[in-house]
C-alpha cells in the first residue's frame, strides 16, 4: 500500500541556548508521508541530523495526542500550524503541499524565553497558577460530591474553560503577548462552580497581579487567541475574568 508522499523545505530557528543569538537554518526532506504527523516529520529530520553527526533540533513534545500542552511550534506564521483546534503534535503533513517551504519558529514571547532552538521556558504560567489557580481546599474533610447540585449548563461551561492545556498558543499568537485567555480559563472555570466561587475575587486579583508582574502584554480583544487555541476556549471567559476582576476591585 503506497502512501502519498511530499518533498518539503524547512526553515527552522536554531539557537544554541538562552544567551546565544539564533538564526534560521534550511533543511530539505524528501518522501515524507502525508499521513505522518508534523512531529514525526521532525523526528525523521532529527534522525537524519544525528546520522550526520549534527545536533538534532530541540523542541518540546510529550504526549503526542494533543493534551499535555508541551508542544509549542509557530509554523508558517501560526501557533500550532495551519489547522484549527489542534496542537502541533496533531498537525499532519497532509496540510502541506509538495515543494512547500515551511517556517518553524519558537513562541516569541518575552515572558517565555527561548531555552534552545524551538524550546521555550513557560515557568511564567506556573507562577500564575501558583498565585491563585486553585480552590484552597486540602485533602479530606470535604462534603459528598452530590451535596451541592450544579446546573448542567454551568458545569458544561466550566468544562469548556477547564479544557485549557497550558500550551501558550494564546500568548504566542496574540499580537500583544497577552496571557488573558490562559488566566481567564482558570478564573472562569472556578468562578462558575460553587466550590470556586467563594474565593473568586481573591483569585482574579492575585492571578492578574502575577500576570502583569511577569510582563505579559495587555489584551486588546483581537480574538486571535480564541481562534488559535487548540481547545477553542472562548473570549467569553475573558469577559467573565474582567467582570470578576472589576467587581473584586469595586468591592474592596
Amino acid at each position: 500500500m503506497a502512501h502519498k508522499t511530499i518533498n518539503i523545505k524547512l526553515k527552522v530557528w536554531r539557537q544554541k541556548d538562552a544567551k546565544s543569538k539564533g538564526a534560521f537554518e534550511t533543511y530539505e526532506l524528501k518522501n515524507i508521508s502525508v499521513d505522518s504527523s508534523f512531529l514525526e516529520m521532525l523526528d525523521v529530520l532529527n534522525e537524519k541530523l544525528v546520522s550526520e553527526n549534527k545536533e538534532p533540533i530541540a523542541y518540546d513534545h510529550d504526549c503526542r495526542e494533543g493534551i499535555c500542552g508541551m508542544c509549542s511550534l509557530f509554523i508558517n506564521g501560526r501557533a500550532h500550524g495551519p489547522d484549527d483546534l489542534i496542537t502541533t503534535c496533531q498537525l499532519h503533513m497532509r496540510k502541506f503541499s509538495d515543494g512547500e517551504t515551511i517556517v518553524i519558529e519558537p513562541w516569541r514571547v518575552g515572558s517565555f524565553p527561548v531555552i534552545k532552538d524551538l524550546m521555550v521556558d513557560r515557568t511564567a504560567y506556573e507562577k500564575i497558577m501558583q498565585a491563585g489557580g486553585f480552590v484552597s481546599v486540602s485533602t479530606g474533610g470535604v462534603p459528598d460530591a452530590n451535596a451541592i447540585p450544579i446546573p448542567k449548563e454551568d458545569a458544561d461551561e466550566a468544562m469548556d474553560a477547564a479544557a485549557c492545556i497550558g500550551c501558550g498558543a494564546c500568548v504566542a499568537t496574540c499580537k500583544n503577548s497577552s496571557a488573558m485567555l490562559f488566566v481567564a480559563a482558570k478564573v472562569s472555570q472556578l468562578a462558575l462552580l460553587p466550590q470556586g466561587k467563594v474565593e473568586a475575587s481573591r483569585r482574579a486579583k492575585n492571578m492578574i497581579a502575577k500576570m502583569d508582574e511577569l510582563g505579559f502584554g495587555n489584551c486588546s480583544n483581537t480574538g486571535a487567541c480564541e481562534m488559535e487555541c487548540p481547545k477553542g476556549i472562548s473570549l467569553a471567559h475573558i469577559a467573565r475574568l474582567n467582570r470578576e476582576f472589576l467587581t473584586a476591585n469595586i468591592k474592596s
Partner: protein
Amino acid sequence: MTKLDSKVPKGKLKDKWSNYKAHQNLVNPANKRKIDVIVVGTGLAGGAAAASLAEMGFKVKAFCYQDSPRRAHSIAAQGGINAAKNYPNDGDTIYRLFYDTIKGGDYRSREANVYRLAEVSNAIIDQAVAQGVPFAREYSGYLDNRSFGGALVSRTFYARGQTGQQLLLGAYSALSRQIGLGNVEMHNRTELMDIVIVDGKARGIVTRNLITGEIKSHFGHAVVLATGGYGNVFYLSTNAMGSNGSAVWKAYKRGAFFANPAFVQIHPTCIPRHGEFQSKLTLMSESLRNDGRIWVPKKKEDAEAIRAGKMRPEDIPDEDRDFYLERRYPAFGNLVPRDVASRAAKERTDNGFGIEKNESGEGVYLDFKYAIERLGKDVIEARYGNLFQMYEKITDENPYETPMRIYPTIHYTMGGLWVDYELQSTIPGLFVTGEANFSDHGANRLGASALMQGLADGYFVLPYTIQNYLAYEITNPRKNPAELEEFKKAEEGVKSQINRLMSVKGNKSADYYHRELGKILWDKVGMARNEKGLKEAIEEIKALRKEFWENLHIPGNTNTVNPELEKANRVADFLELGELMAYDALSRNESCGGHFREEYATEEGEAMRRDDEYMYVAAWEYKGDDKEPELHKEPLEYEEIEVKTRNYKTA
C-alpha cells in the same frame, strides 16, 4: 524462603484499613516541618501525594521531567474514574467494585489492597468536586455516570473525554497552591538518575537538570516514586514520548523487587499504526465501546477487498458483519475487559479478517452507525465529539460516516515495583505509588481504574502509611547530601554512566535501538507469548543491548539540552527491563489477564489460568548485571472471594 512481608493488617477485610489507620504511628505537626519527603513524578499519584503531604506540614521536594507538573501523562486518560457511589441506584457497593477489580485482574492482585482501593474510591470523587473538577452532570445538577468494560453497573465518573486531564489539573492546582505557599520545592525539567541508599534506607536521589545538565543530589527522609509505567519499553504505545521506566529500574538495581513485569495491558481501541516512522499510537477511549459495535467482515474475501482498497466498510451488509465480541461473549458483549477484547481482535486478524490497509492487516472496526440510528447524531456528538474530532484529525476519516479503525496497543503496565500494604518497596523508606507499583490491578486492569488507583494512593493511602515509617525518622535531622559519602558515590556513578553513553560514538541513534527493542517485545513478549519466542527474545535483547553499547551515537554535549542523551539514558534501562519482562513471562506457565501464553489456552482459545501453581506475585530481585534475576513469590490468599474462572459469556 520468601523475604516478602505484605504487612496486611489483621482482622476482617472490611475493617483492615480503618484498623490500620486507628493504630498506625503518626508524626506530630511540629516534627513534620523537620521531615523532607522526595516525590518523583507529578501525575495523579505523585501530584496528589506531594500536595497532600505538604498540606499536612511535611517539607516536600517534587520532581518531574516535563516543564510543568501539569503535563504528566495522567493527563491523557480519557474515559473516566470508577467509584462505588451507587448514585445511579444500580446496585453498586464497595464490595462489588472490589470484586470486579479482583476478577478483572484475573485473581492476581492482593485482596486487602484492592478492598482499600474500593473503600477510598468515593472520597476521591468528593475531593475532586471540591477542587472544582467539572465532572459531567445531569440536568438535575447531580453527577452523571457511564459504564465501562468489566462491570455490570454504571460507576464511572467522567469529564467529557478528558477525565484524566481534569483530575490531574485538580491535583496540579492543589500542588501549585503548596508550591506557592513554599511547602513544596518544585523541580521541573529534572530527571531522576539514581536513588541513594544510606544504612539500608532510601535517603535521597541524584538528578540531572535537563536544561543545564547539572548533576545534583537531594536529601529526603523518604523517597516516593510515582513515575508511572514502563509501557514505552515497546517503543510504540499510548504512553507519552518521555514516559520511561528509568526510576523504577534504578530502584530495582538498588534492591527493590520488581513485581509481575510481564503483566502489560494491551488496550483494544487504538488507532492502527500507519507507517515506519510512527512515533506513538493514539488511544480511543474505552467509553466508545458503550455505543460502538466492534466487527470484522464475516467473509474473508470482503476483508481482502477492504485491505486492497476495493471495498468500503459501509458496503458490507449487516448479515455479512461478524460482531465477534457479541458472538463470543453474549453477557458483556462489546464491554468485555480489555485483555479479552484485545485477544479477540488479534484472533480475527491472525485468521485473515483484519481490515487495515497494510502488510499486517491489523485492524478491526468500531462502528457507531447503530448508535447514531438509535440515539441520533447529536447524542453521539455530545458524548464523544472530541474523540471523533481527534480521530478525524489523525486519520482524515469521518467516524460519523465510516466506522473507526482500531487495533490493540500497549497501554498500561500492571507490573511495577513490589510494595507492601503500606506502599513501601523492599527498600525501607522507598515508597511507590500509582502505575509505578504493582499492587492493585493483578494481571489486567479494568477501565477507569488507573485514575482511581493513582489518586487513591496519592490522596488517601500514602500520606497515611508513609507516616508509619516517618514516625521513626523524627530523630534523624535533615542532612546535607554533600557531606554523605553515599551521595558522592552515586553522583560519580551517574556521571560515569553519562560519559559511557557519550563515548560509544557509534553510528545509530537511541531511537533506532528503541524501535528494534519494541519490535522484539511486540512480537515475542506482546499479546501472545510462548516459551520458544520468550527464550529467543531474551537472547535477542541481550544481543541488541550489546550492540547498543558498541554502536550508539549521541551528538552534542552533556551540559545543555540534549534530547538524544535523555533518550539514550532511558533506552539503556529499557534494554534491561525488557529482558526481565521476558524472564517473568517465561516463568509464568499459565495465561492470566494481559499475560497470554499460547501453550495455556482452552480449545476455544480462552485463557487457561493455573491457580494451583501460579497464584502468586512474582517479585524479582536484581542479582548483578549479567546474572539471572532471582524470583521471590508472594502467595495470594483470598479470604472473602471465591476464585473462579473469569466468565464474560453469561452474567
